[in-house]
């Protein structure tokens, strides 16, 4: 009969309160780990999503709006820019290459982006390009063909050979489906390999196709929404920033893309801090529930403690069994907390992917997976000290007397 067995017996004897308390620890652990992991992964992932480009050139607006629109395909385009602006930056000596994009249509809520085949030659990550899965190919820029991002293809049920009519505008309203439908019919010729980037949520068609789509203003047929820019050297970005943003009020040059997103995440950092505070409070409440559940049962336990003492257990031994019990409840809780964590992170990752195309990895390593359980076990051990002191002070003679 070891201390562990005595603790195990006590946990079983108080099975309901053990389960409820371990459940609250599990929620706290899961929430704490998920909040930190989502925050850390989001910051890391969103600041690394650049599509392989260094900067975005677009109509005068905020840099953030440009990046969200052109890289994350989230915001509305501020305005169009002339094809001459694209040509000018394409020929700029500091620019390695520039890819124009145009947008303004969707298919059932998934954004249609017009671009050139150059978009698919860019490495969005080292050694990785947007590549069609077999059987499939890139669109012919002279035809009404489309390649579809993997997530959009799955959600829309599109595959090579599928045909669709784009809808006007970036937002899809089912009740206005017919009046916003373009006459042009596009054929899907390829589905892209998953890239875990916002590109997965996009339907790509030739630039000219989008510009000349039926119903679009003919006088704007040569305009584009933005230009994605790869610089020869990142250091030149500062000079171009100066050139476009300080000397011209027509255009905005968003550089570097990662910093623009980091600035956004910094601005909404208060939200993370509130979430973290809530999670921390939940952790403290959970530790408090350990204290309450053990403390409330102390009157019932005193006779047992007195008996253990009569059998030779030392005061510190009976106090230790109470602390071990608190730790054991916390260990059960944090073990279940990993299940809660996986559930929350999987759900959050699903939502984030659906909304942005960015993929968070539920199983990826983060130090919070170690320190959060340790903090909770530590807090529970501290919470267990209060009833442990009561156990330590239990007077044997008082509590061994027959109950009358």
């Amino acid at each position, binding site marked *: *009969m*070891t201390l562990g*067995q*005595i603790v195990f*017996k*006590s946990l*079983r*004897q108080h099975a309901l309160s053990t389960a409820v308390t371990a459940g609250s620890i599990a929620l706290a652990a899961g929430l704490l780990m998920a909040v930190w992991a989502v925050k850390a992964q989001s910051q890391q992932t969103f600041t690394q999503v650049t599509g392989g480009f260094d900067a975005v050139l677009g109509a005068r607006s905020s840099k953030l709006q440009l990046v969200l629109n052109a890289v994350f395909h989230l915001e509305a385009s501020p305005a169009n820019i002339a094809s001459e602006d694209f040509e000018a930056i394409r020929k700029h000596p500091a620019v390695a290459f520039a890819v124009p994009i145009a947008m303004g249509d969707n298919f059932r809520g998934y954004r249609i982006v017009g671009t050139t085949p150059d978009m698919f030659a860019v490495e969005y990550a080292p050694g990785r390009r947007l590549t069609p899965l077999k059987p499939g190919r890139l669109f012919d820029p002279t035809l009404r063909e489309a390649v579809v991002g993997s997530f959009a293809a799955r959600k829309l049920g599109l595959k090579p050979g599928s045909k669709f009519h784009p809808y006007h505008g970036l937002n899809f309203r089912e009740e206005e489906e017919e009046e916003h439908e373009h006459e042009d019919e596009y054929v899907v010729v390829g589905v892209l390999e998953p890239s875990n980037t916002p590109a997965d949520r996009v339907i790509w068609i030739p630039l000219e196709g989008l510009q000349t789509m039926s119903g679009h203003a003919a006088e704007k047929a040569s305009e584009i929404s933005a230009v994605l820019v790869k610089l020869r050297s990142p250091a030149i970005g500062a000079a171009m920033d100066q050139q476009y943003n300080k000397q011209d009020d027509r255009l905005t040059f968003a550089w570097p893309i990662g910093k623009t997103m980091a600035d956004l995440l910094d601005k909404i950092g208060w939200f993370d801090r509130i979430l973290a505070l809530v999670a921390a409070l939940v952790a403290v409440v959970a530790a408090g529930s350990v204290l309450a559940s053990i403390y409330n049962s102390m009157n019932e336990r005193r*006779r*047992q403690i007195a*008996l*253990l*003492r*009569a*059998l*030779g*257990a*030392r*005061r*510190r*031994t009976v106090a230790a069994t109470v602390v071990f019990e608190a730790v054991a409840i916390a260990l059960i809780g944090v073990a279940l907390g990993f299940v809660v964590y996986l559930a929350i992170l999987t759900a959050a990752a699903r939502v984030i992917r659906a909304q942005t195309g960015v993929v968070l990895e539920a199983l990826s390593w983060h130090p919070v997976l170690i320190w959060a359980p340790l903090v909770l076990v530590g807090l529970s051990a501290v919470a267990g000290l209060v009833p442990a002191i009561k156990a330590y002070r239990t007077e*044997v*003679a*008082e509590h*061994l*007397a*027959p*109950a009358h």
Partner: protein
Amino acid sequence: MPLLEVSQLKKSFQAPDGTTCTVIDMPRFTLEERSQVALQGESGLGKTTFLHLIAGILKPDSGRISFAGQELTALDEPRRDRVRAMSLGYIFQTFNLLPAFTALENVLLGMAFGPGADRQLARSLLDRVGLGVRLAHYPRQLSTGQQQRVAVARALANRPKLVLADEPTGNLDSASAREALKLIRDTCAENGAALLLVSHDREVLAQFENVVALADLNRVAAPAASAP
């Protein structure tokens, strides 16, 4: 040299009204190894307090208790706990079995803080008290008499030199009481343990050759009604 030697032992408690209530004032008491002594006394005379003092659960106000060559009264509490764990067995009137533990586990508890768990000894003790087929039974699944037998087995589990029995048959009918008492005496004798039993039950006391009246030992005349 006696196994247990008590001299000039005094113990008082604070009564709820603030007055000091002396429960034990005992000039001398001795108990030889392997002997069996019944201590007779009515309720409130301090029988339980006396056993608690011998067991080291309570510390006397003054006096000496020498047990197996060790002066208990000179030891600090952890050392007295150790003596209790290693050399003393205790049988209670209400058995004090732990409800979440099986019969075997309750007996193992009797060894847990002393010599360490010996499942074979625990089994053989339960076998000896007639519960060899009830090892996995919980106290609620045992009769009152069977529960007391488990308590007897537990008291002997650490191979004690002395077993203290506090009204061990108080909760049993007279047939079960006789049977339990015989079992306690026999198993103590078989295990070489001395027995100090306190009771006010004449039927129990009649079975002992050596009966001592607590009133003859204790100079406290009036019953200590407020004593624990």
